[in-house]
């Protein structure tokens, strides 16, 4: 049999390859270096890899091509989102690498130790944490980079698994509240696999559709070009197409945490180690939306009149569920989880505007939200008592008196979530709503405005609690952040401010990048 390899443009794939190589190297470091030196070596390796990949993305900035057969597309959205994932992933690494807040870091040394046993208590107290988290994180990032570039459903599925599997593991590695963490990981894994199955099944149906629609070409395919042609030209049975698209989108909607596939979000966000939660909330969202945007805008754009009502309904439901349930939360991590659900709804509003503006405003929103949410979870890691983080909201009462600076920063971030003007939360919502309106989706905009009015309430309640309540006996202390967390926090808060006051440069960048190769 004559097997011909397709030509591969390695330079265009450099960002993915750099990170993939670095994660393999990280595993070697685990095997070779003595335990004491691993932390520093891994952290430096990880940050170098992220910076290196970012440089590669910048160097590739003008690439608009499809390579490796038709498996990978390197175009404006790919490069923009890869850059976003790398910057946010780098911030995530900084939070993950912090060791001065909790002795030995947020991660457990030996994940297999029985919860509650004497060994467990000893390692919770003082043992240095696992350093496997770094290669795992890098694997996850490289999977995300591939996910946003994937140009066929199979590559997309593989990338999905590459970034999901490390995340399942990472969720289980919390040093404190081990049971909660392991439970979260297992839930995430089970439900994630379940969602993957939907995705696979959808892929099979779509393949069936393209085969039926094949006509002149030899059989079907799962690359987006073939699907696109089949959708526009074919008169084959569209039941396969729409059943397939429905199942595919369920797989993706699970990752972006859209209702009713959001059920895992609060539990997982709460149980996972907080730096990982932040990483997931920022980077997974960027990656998952990158994939969804490509699927909707490239492969199925010919059917947009048919999927917009259904996905629009999901967007409305997601915004409603996220906003209303956020009101009743009493745990800051669960509150942020529901806020992340609601934000998935706003992002869907932008993603469903099948236009250049819809694409660019959604990408802008992803970046803006990523910075804010990472910084917010960074603050959560700092509010602690003897048992680790104090996440119950009642414990945050009066925090403004104890540590005005940190409470001030957190207030600012909450105002951004609430979409108060002069923060990135306002400009990004405004941009997606504007794009949706231009695309004729005014019902989504009305739903978006109304739910964001509700959603502002839980955030402002926290603000009032922090500033206007007397600190009680149980108000936890705020740890002095180390350099790494400080850097991540500073970047997040500054970005939230700058993107709120002068968002034009990034909007221009997103606008210039908002064109898929087809």
């Amino acid at each position, binding site marked *: 049999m004559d097997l011909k390899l397709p030509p591969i443009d390695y330079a265009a794939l450099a960002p993915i390859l750099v990170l993939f190589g670095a994660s393999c190297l990280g595993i070697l470091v685990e095997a070779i270096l003595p335990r004491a030196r691993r932390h520093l070596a891994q952290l430096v390796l990880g940050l170098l890899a992220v910076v290196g990949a970012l440089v590669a993305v910048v160097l590739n900035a003008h690439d608009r091509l499809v390579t490796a057969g038709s498996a990978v597309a390197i175009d404006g959205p790919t490069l923009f989102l890869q850059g976003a994932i790398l910057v946010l992933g780098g911030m995530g690494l900084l939070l993950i690498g912090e060791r001065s807040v909790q002795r030995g870091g947020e991660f457990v040394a030996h994940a297999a130790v029985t919860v509650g046993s004497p060994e467990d208590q000893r390692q919770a107290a003082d043992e240095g944490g696992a350093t496997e988290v770094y290669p795992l994180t890098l694997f996850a990032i490289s999977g995300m980079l591939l996910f946003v570039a994937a140009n066929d459903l199979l590559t997309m599925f593989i990338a999905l698994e590459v970034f999901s599997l490390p995340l399942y593991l990472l969720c289980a590695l919390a040093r404190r509240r081990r049971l909660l963490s392991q439970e979260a990981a297992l839930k995430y894994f089970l439900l994630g696999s379940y969602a993957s199955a939907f995705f696979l099944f959808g892929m099979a149906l779509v393949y069936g559709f393209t085969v039926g629609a094949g006509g002149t070409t030899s059989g079907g395919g799962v690359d987006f070009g073939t699907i696109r042609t089949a959708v526009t030209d074919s008169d084959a049975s569209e039941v396969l197409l729409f059943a397939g698209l*429905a199942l595919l989108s369920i797989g993706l909607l699970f990752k972006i945490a859209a209702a009713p596939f959001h059920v895992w979000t609060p539990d997982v966000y709460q149980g996972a180690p907080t730096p990982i939660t932040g990483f997931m909330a920022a980077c997974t969202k960027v990656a998952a939306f990158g994939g969804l945007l490509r699927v909707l805008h490239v492969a199925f754009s010919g059917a947009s009149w048919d999927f917009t009502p259904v996905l629009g309904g999901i967007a409305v439901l997601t915004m409603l569920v996220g906003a209303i349930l956020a009101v009743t939360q009493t745990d800051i991590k669960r509150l942020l989880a529901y806020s992340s659900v609601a934000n998935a709804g706003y992002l869907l509003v932008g993603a469903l505007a099948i236009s250049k503006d819809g694409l660019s405003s959604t990408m802008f929103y992803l970046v803006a939200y990523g910075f804010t949410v990472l910084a917010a979870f960074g603050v959560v890691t700092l509010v602690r008592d003897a048992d680790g983080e104090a996440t119950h909201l009642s414990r945050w009462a009066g925090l403004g008196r104890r540590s005005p600076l940190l409470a001030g920063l957190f207030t600012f971030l909450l105002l951004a979530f609430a979409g108060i003007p002069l923060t990135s939360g306002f400009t990004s919502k405004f941009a997606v709503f504007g794009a949706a309106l231009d695309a004729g989706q005014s019902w989504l905009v009305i739903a978006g405005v109304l739910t964001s009015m509700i959603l502002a309430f839980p955030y402002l309640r926290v603000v009032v609690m922090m500033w206007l309540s007397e600190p009680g006996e149980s108000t936890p202390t705020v740890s002095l952040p180390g350099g790494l967390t400080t850097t991540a926090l500073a970047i997040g808060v500054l970005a939230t401010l700058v993107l709120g006051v002068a968002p034009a440069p990034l909007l221009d960048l997103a606008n210039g990048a908002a064109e898929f190769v087809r």
Partner: protein
Amino acid sequence: MEHSVEYAHATGLLGSVWLLVAIPLVSAAILLLLGRRADRWGHWLGVASVGAIFVLGLSYFFSLRGLENRSVELSLWDFIAIGNLHVDFGLLYDPLAAVFVLLITGVGFLIHLYAVGYMSHDAGRRKFFGFFNLFVAAMLLLVLGNNYVMLYVGWEGVGLASYLLISFWQDRPSAATAGKKAFLMNRVGDAGLAIAIFIMFATLGSTQFADVFNGASQLAGGTVLAIGLLLLLGAAGKSGQFPLQAWLPDAMEGPTPVSALIHAATMVTAGVYLIARSNPIFSLDPTLQTVVVSVGALTLLMGCIIGAAKDDIKRVLAWSTVSQIGYMFLGVGLGGGAYALAIIHLLAHGFFKANMFLGAGSVMHGMKDQVDIRRFGGLAKYMKITWITFGLGWLAIIGMWPFSGFFTKEPIIVEAFARDDWTAWLYGGAALLGAGLTAFYMTRLFVLTFHGPKRWTEDIEHPHESPAIMTVPLILLGLGSVVAGGLMATPVASWLTPVLGHGEHHEPVLSHTVITVLSLLLTVLGAGLAWMLFRNGTALVEQPAGPVVRAARRNLYTDAFNETVFEKPGIFLTRALVFLDNRGIDGLVNALAAAVGGGSGRLRRLQTGFVRSYAMSMLTGAVLVVAAFLAVQLGWLA
């Protein structure tokens, strides 16, 4: 519009109008970020920053007077630009903005000064001034923005500051509830404003004032009506007008200077500003104007009736604010020349209402925070300055000649009588009746507080006058209550002509003199009746009363209405969602299991977080999504 709206670019001194927003903003940031280090001098920084922008505002005012076009625009930077959507971060300084700047900074300065004394015993004084400065910055941005998005930025900012300041004494549960109520009702209004802005963008492609005003006449009638009604919803939310009036009286839980500045003189008049600013839109559609007039007339009567039945000094004043803003809405709704009348009444009201609120604060200061007017009485002897200044405010608000209110309220009543159909009698009559009722309830408040027998609680022996830092602002505002209206009426009207246009003059259905005599007569009657009834004090506890008074005590049942129509369904929806999210599917699975296994003990394990129930809800969702896709598809085929 017969002429197109254009603004010149700001040059020279006017190129620095952005300082008006920047200075209080920086001051707020310093106060809030420095923490306790700024405790000793923080309040003075707060006062100084507002004083500084008052001086700046005056000098801008005079340089604007020298200009031919009398309006300048300053585009600072591109705020949001995506696709066709283009929003400037820009300011517009024109006659309308200029008078608001002077009101906000002038009255704001006096109230800041007063608050130094009023809050002197409060541990959170620095923080209070931080929020207060934040409010001033946001309010100035609101009136200075050159497009609706900038206006919205300020709008949200004042809402935020107001919410924080109402909840300032968070340890009182009533303050927390009031904060929530204000927040929720304002959000309803804000949603209206936001949607109106998006409609402008969708139909006109811009939110710049100039583009919107020039393009509005080309819009379809329905669109204009929709934009106008949504703007009105926003305005009603912020200004406490029907049907969103319930939050304003509750907002009095905040410290008294807050009530004076935010909930009497400035923020609550933002709705009037919004409508006056959007006058080219409102003037296009007579139906729209009639709606505004009706809201104004209805609210002004409601405010009077409820105000007459309340016993809390600040709430009476709050309902009177609701009612006076009703007059202003009536004015902006009448359109034409009445736009300027409403703004003039707004300015005069800013003085006399701030004066009376600060007076009420001074009374509370001397009476150990008592607010019940049934427990006052005879205070005139003990608090001379407060008595006299409050008295001037009282004469001004009831519209007694030659005090401020006479010159500003009277013309609005005349204009209401000048509509060209039978509605002249309806709205004119309402405005006239309102004048009589106002005289009644304000006199009741004044007499019960300062005259008649003492009805103090036992712990008060010798009430004292407030310190000079509180009485000096009172005296200045008292002077303003006397002269502001008379001095401003004519010059301000001509000053505002470039923005609000000339009104055609209609003749009222009754002659000018007759209306004036009637309204003065009603005022004297109302005041005299109240004086007769209450000069000997009143019962210390609530007395049984007829249906009207009972209804007024219950805020004319509007709260009960809100509760049944909005609150209960809202709570139910939330509970249902929480149940579905946590328990619903899970409960189903467990109930089945329990039924099958026959053990009720299993039901006790009904708890949240089972993977199987999550998977179940995902499956349900998946089935629905696939079904929906196919349904859309089949529907399309059919």
